[in-house]
């Protein structure tokens, strides 16, 4: 990537960080935190965005951030007070700023009207106390803000087509302050040579006797005649721009009207044409002993340069490191490649272990011990590599304060969002794919969950509803809870809708929990009217599917009048899975361990037949369907007697249970997931594939899909589905990885 493009990428990444900081700061201010450092940080965030935007000529972003910055600067200096109204405006402005940033990044557009209105409101806020300064700084059209190049005035040059020579006489008498600020007279003279020919006279008349000489003081003065084509006073003055106020400076054009003799003893000519500027610089530096450390330092390091420079470099980096967290940027592709390789390493290590075991070596033999160490190390490498992909959920959580504000405004509800555990880490892919379902659930929580402020007051609750978003680690998974303190699920209504839509039988006898879980069924939507907020044609079934596709589970618990809580449980990574390796009809399959409750040997007395191909098994007090995996995947047509196999009691996402019939259990193993969709095509009942220690491909079961009874399992295909018909497990070319 071209380096500037790379910096642009960094800039937008930094913008996101600044936006997050801005919002966090404003929210803290809203909560009543008056720490001046917060206001400073908020100001810096906007200032920083403006600075970078200017560098990349992102005009719209510069303009908006400038107005924003001006208002914040006024607050920072105490000129205006940040009351709740003002902070609300600033929060909304932060949203618009975020829009501008994203529009600049993705090439989109922003809502011009909204942006303009916000900019005007900000300008009005900045002018709050009616002082003229703000008006001058952020006028109506914000046109005052522009970057003037520090260069020659092209206008004046253009005005005069024929080049004409001009001469300026400059009298320049530095004061001590000039040198204290590390400016150098000699360098200023050198700058003048860039404008044209110069003739210089050094005035040493101010030099005291050596005994009285104060090395920190300034005693020398210069008179310079600069002659150049189309030379303007502005250009000459600009050379002295940085020392204005720290010297006596007089600039006058000669030869035009000769305004009163510039100074006595016009000895410029007397100096004779040629002037050795460097000699003058040297003279100046020798005369002013004190402020010349630059030159001496250079001289000293000139010797054993290389090594010393490197040592210094390392030291400087070390100091820089203490101040900021030490990070490097790595292409995600490289990380993924590494993860892939580590996956291969895990498989390879397993294969090696198996081969060694087959050799019949003793457990205590040095090869076996070395292999144990290798296994341990491989695990550690795998964990460390996975940790590289892990990110705090903050990156997705931080979008929600804005979402909540917007939905609250649209629904007229008062909402407070509380977030917990933002630093909980989980795989980047999981994080990315969490955004949509979480957004949907938060929308639902506000739109359907929370009551209007009036209803809340009538119910004896505070006007402001609370939506809580929390993340935590629990037994190797990440758990995310979205709860609200609203009205809870209206069970009678949910049940009625389910009956109306034919999802359940009218006389179905469901527990409260089962009724709550009806909202996850496809085609279910409780909103009487599809609203702008939660409508969009997706229901909780879509949310559930997307969570499941991440290997996650979702549950709801609700208490009427007190609110609802959705609980998501997700794996920390999508790359590996703890599985139970089983044999079915001569095939090796893997069942995700998280779905398995227990395994048991069915007794003939416990198995009841409901028909030729339907069995249930009694497990303690309840009966669950007994499903022959071999038959449902098409490996065999005749089910062997259940008593000859093993039953795995599994639980699906919705809490439903089933017993899966397999022939034998081979053992538990962590397996590396290889996508079947990416490498082959989707197969019903199969979630993915993996490669086992002996090099064979094994399919990973999709427990929920296997549990769903298939009415047309006996080969009948649904009409029209042929073209898109996914492969069945029995057709898979399992020899492919042989």
């Amino acid at each position, binding site marked *: 990537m071209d380096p500037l493009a790379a910096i642009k990428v960094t800039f937008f990444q930094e913008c996101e960080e600044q936006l997050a900081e801005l919002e966090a700061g404003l929210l803290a201010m809203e909560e009543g935190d008056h720490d001046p450092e917060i206001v400073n940080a908020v100001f810096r965030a906007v200032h920083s965005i403006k600075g970078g935007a200017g560098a990349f000529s992102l005009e719209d972003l510069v303009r908006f951030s400038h107005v924003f910055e001006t208002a914040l600067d006024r607050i920072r200096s105490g000129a205006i007070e940040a009351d709740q109204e003002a902070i609300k405006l600033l929060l909304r402005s932060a949203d618009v700023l975020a829009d501008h940033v994203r529009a600049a990044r993705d090439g989109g557009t922003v809502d011009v009207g909204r942006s303009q209105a916000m900019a005007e409101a900000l300008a009005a806020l900045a002018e709050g106390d009616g002082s003229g300064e703000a008006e001058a700084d952020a006028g109506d059209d914000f046109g005052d803000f522009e970057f003037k190049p520090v260069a020659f005035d092209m206008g004046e040059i253009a005005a005069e087509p024929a080049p004409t020579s001009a001469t300026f006489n400059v009298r320049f008498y530095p004061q001590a302050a000039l040198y204290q600020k590390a400016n150098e007279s000699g360098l200023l003279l050198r700058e003048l040579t860039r404008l044209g020919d110069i003739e210089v006279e050094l005035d040493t008349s101010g030099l005291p006797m050596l005994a009285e000489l104060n090395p920190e003081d300034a005693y020398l003065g210069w008179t310079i005649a600069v002659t150049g084509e189309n030379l303007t006073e502005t250009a000459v003055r600009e050379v002295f721009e940085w020392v204005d106020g720290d010297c006596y400076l007089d600039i006058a054009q000669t030869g035009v009207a000769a305004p009163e003799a510039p100074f006595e003893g016009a000895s410029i000519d007397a100096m004779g044409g040629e002037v050795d500027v460097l000699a003058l610089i040297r003279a100046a530096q020798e005369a002013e002993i004190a402020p010349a450390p630059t030159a001496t*330092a250079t001289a000293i390091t000139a010797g054993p340069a290389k090594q010393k420079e490197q040592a210094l470099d390392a030291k400087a980096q070390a100091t820089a490191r203490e101040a900021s967290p030490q990070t490097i940027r790595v292409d995600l592709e490289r990380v993924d490649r590494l993860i892939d390789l580590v996956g291969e390493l895990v498989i390879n290590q397993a294969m090696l272990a198996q081969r060694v075991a087959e050799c019949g070596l003793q457990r205590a033999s040095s090869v076996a011990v070395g292999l144990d160490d290798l296994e341990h190390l491989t695990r550690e490498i795998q964990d460390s590599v996975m940790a590289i992909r892990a990110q705090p959920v903050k990156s997705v959580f931080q979008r929600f304060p804005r979402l909540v504000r917007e939905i609250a405004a649209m629904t007229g509800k008062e909402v407070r969002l509380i977030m917990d555990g933002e630093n909980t880490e989980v795989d980047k892919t999981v994080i990315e794919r969490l955004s949509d379902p979480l957004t949907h659930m938060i929308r639902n929580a506000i739109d359907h969950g929370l009551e209007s402020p009036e209803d809340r007051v009538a119910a004896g609750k505070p006007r402001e509803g609370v939506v809580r978003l929390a993340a935590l680690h629990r037994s190797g998974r990440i758990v995310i809870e979205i709860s609200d303190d609203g009205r809870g699920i209206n069970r009678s209504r949910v049940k009625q809708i389910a009956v109306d839509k034919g999802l359940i039988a009218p006389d179905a006898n469901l527990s409260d929990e089962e009724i709550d879980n009806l909202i996850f069924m496809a085609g279910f939507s409780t909103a009487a009217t599809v609203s702008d907020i939660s409508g969009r044609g997706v229901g909780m079934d879509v949310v559930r599917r997307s969570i499941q596709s991440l290997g996650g589970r979702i549950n709801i618990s609700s208490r009427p009048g007190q609110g609802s809580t959705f609980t998501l449980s997700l794996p920390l990574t999508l790359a590996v899975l703890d599985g139970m390796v089983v044999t079915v009809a001569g095939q090796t399959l893997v069942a995700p361990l998280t779905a398995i409750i227990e395994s048991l040997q069915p007794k003939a007395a416990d198995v009841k037949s409901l028909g030729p191909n339907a069995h249930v098994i009694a497990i303690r007090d309840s009966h669950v369907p007994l499903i022959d995996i071999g038959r449902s995947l098409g490996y065999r047509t005749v089910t062997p007697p259940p008593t000859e196999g093993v039953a795995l009691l599994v639980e699906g996402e919705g809490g439903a249970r089933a017993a899966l019939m397999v022939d034998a259990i081979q053992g538990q193993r962590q397996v590396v997931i290889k996508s079947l969709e990416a490498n082959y095509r989707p197969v019903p009942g199969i979630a993915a594939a993996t490669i086992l220690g002996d090099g064979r491909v094994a399919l990973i079961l999709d427990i929920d899909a296997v549990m769903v009874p298939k009415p047309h399992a006996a080969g009948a295909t649904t009409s029209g589905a042929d073209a898109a018909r996914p492969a069945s497990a029995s057709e898979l070319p399992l020899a492919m990885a042989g």
Partner: protein
Amino acid sequence: MTKTILTVDDSRTMRDMLHLALSEAGFRVVQAVDGLDGLDALDAAQADVIITDINMPRMDGFGFIEGVRANEKHRGTPILVLTTESDVAKKQRAREAGATGWIVKPFNPEKLIDAIRRVAA
């Protein structure tokens, strides 16, 4: 002799921009992320010129400049302040603190090198 520039800026974007422009022009670049970090880096960097931002956490540019000017070993090092054209009051304050000159943001590489040339022999 390669000249060394110490850049002090809390913005990664700005640090990267400066680094790109300066290293392409043949300077050695040492970076610091705020005023305090910049003061810590002085001895190690042995900078010929310092370029600093104003608005930074922990210690801002004014404090940093005063710190450099109060440092016996480094007080003679030229310091250029990164400002925007509209920061008139800030320029003045920076000069009072002891800044040598300023670079108006956004800068192009030529402007940057021009500014350095004006303060470094």
